[in-house]
């Protein structure tokens, strides 16, 4: 029972996946995580459709003027505690599209990104690694919300 109350968040991180005009390379790699070979569900990871039920926001592609509102909206619609994972070079820094006329840069220009998964595109293993790291941060954030005074260093 102690185990149940300890890692509440990290045992079932539900993921919502947002494509910010990425080239679909990272998206396919992300979806590969859910396939039988990598089987992310064994870690309790489920790809849900609505941000209202998600814990982790996985963003692929760079932040640009077209999708800035969408990304903010979706982030706002997620319940606390929540974590943002930037998957791929574009999401981390803007990648090859960096300093294009319509590109703002990495996702961290808009949202507080917790985990960066670099690569173009990152391998499924590293994405899963990022998600595990994200779920650890998720648990820390929950404890922080529960006891606001104590504060745990992230």
């Amino acid at each position, binding site marked *: 029972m102690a185990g*149940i109350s300890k890692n509440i968040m990290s045992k*079932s991180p539900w993921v919502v996946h947002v494509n910010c005009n990425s080239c679909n390379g990272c998206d396919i790699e992300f979806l590969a995580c859910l396939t039988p070979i990598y*089987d992310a569900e*064994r870690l309790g990871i489920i790809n*849900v459709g609505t941000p*209202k*039920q998600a814990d982790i926001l996985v963003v692929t592609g760079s932040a640009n003027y077209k999708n800035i509102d969408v990304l903010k909206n979706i982030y706002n619609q997620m*319940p606390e*505690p929540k974590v943002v994972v930037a998957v791929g070079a574009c999401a981390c820094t803007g990648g090859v599209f960096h300093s294009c006329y319509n590109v703002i840069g990495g996702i961290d220009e808009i949202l507080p990104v917790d985990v960066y998964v670099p690569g173009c595109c990152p391998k499924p293993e590293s994405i899963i690694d990022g998600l595990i790291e994200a779920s650890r941060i998720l648990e820390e954030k*929950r404890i922080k919300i529960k006891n606001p005074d104590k504060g745990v260093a992230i």
Partner: protein
Amino acid sequence: MITLINLKILIKLLLILILPPVIGCILSGIDRKVTAHLQGRVGPPLLQPLYDVIKLFNKENIVVNKYQNVYVITYFIFVVLSLFMLLMKMDFLMIIFVYTIANTSLIVGGMSTGSPYSRIGSVRETISMLAYEPILLFYIIGMYMLTGSFKISKLAYTNKPLLYYLPLIFIAMLFIMTIKFKKSPFDFSTSHHAHQELVKGMFTEYSGPALAIIEVAHWYEYVFLLGLIFLFWYTSPIIGLILALITFFLEIVIDNICARLSWEWMLKFTWTIIIGLSIANILFIYLYNVKIL
């Protein structure tokens, strides 16, 4: 003496309240595990549904309609009540009426959020309600014709299982179970798999604790629905249990080998063939005047 009886009832009540969600949780875990194995995956741990629910209770409570959670509470309480009444062997028709309150509440709750996705999900759920409700009622009428009573407690005095004379209705019930478990050919009102078209159907706007309550209510509902199958072989509880479990595994297999169908197809199929089967079964009992009491 009185206190003893009261204690007995109290323990019974507690068992009814506590045991079903445990069973339901494990069933739901088995479902996910078996599904994973059928797809060549390892799958989540058996208690994954429990972890999900605990996590959901710890999430922030966000709503779009201030009163949307009232519907969830109504749904939960009436599902528990219908299961309670089933276990107390009360009037079968009454149980289905109470169960209807639960489902209607969920549908209206989905609609009340005003979200287009949940509205479509709710409308589809009303359609599936239209599909399964008659079959449940035909099942009840079949039982009444065989035992001469609407009370489930009368089944204890029967000398033959219901399945013996209600085979067609049993097939119809298997069909209905797929709709009720929201399994694959008919998982169009809400499911994880349908999120490309409907996000999460009826539950799109539900999150955190409300979703957790819905999930726990589903565990009760699992037991309730399998209880309906169990009644087909009430005379020997062990066979009844085996029947219920076989049904459950069959539903998981069906879930994994079927693609999703449209609601039109489902409605046409249930309102022609499935209802036809049920009426044929009832007519047979009527014409041959079979009694098993």
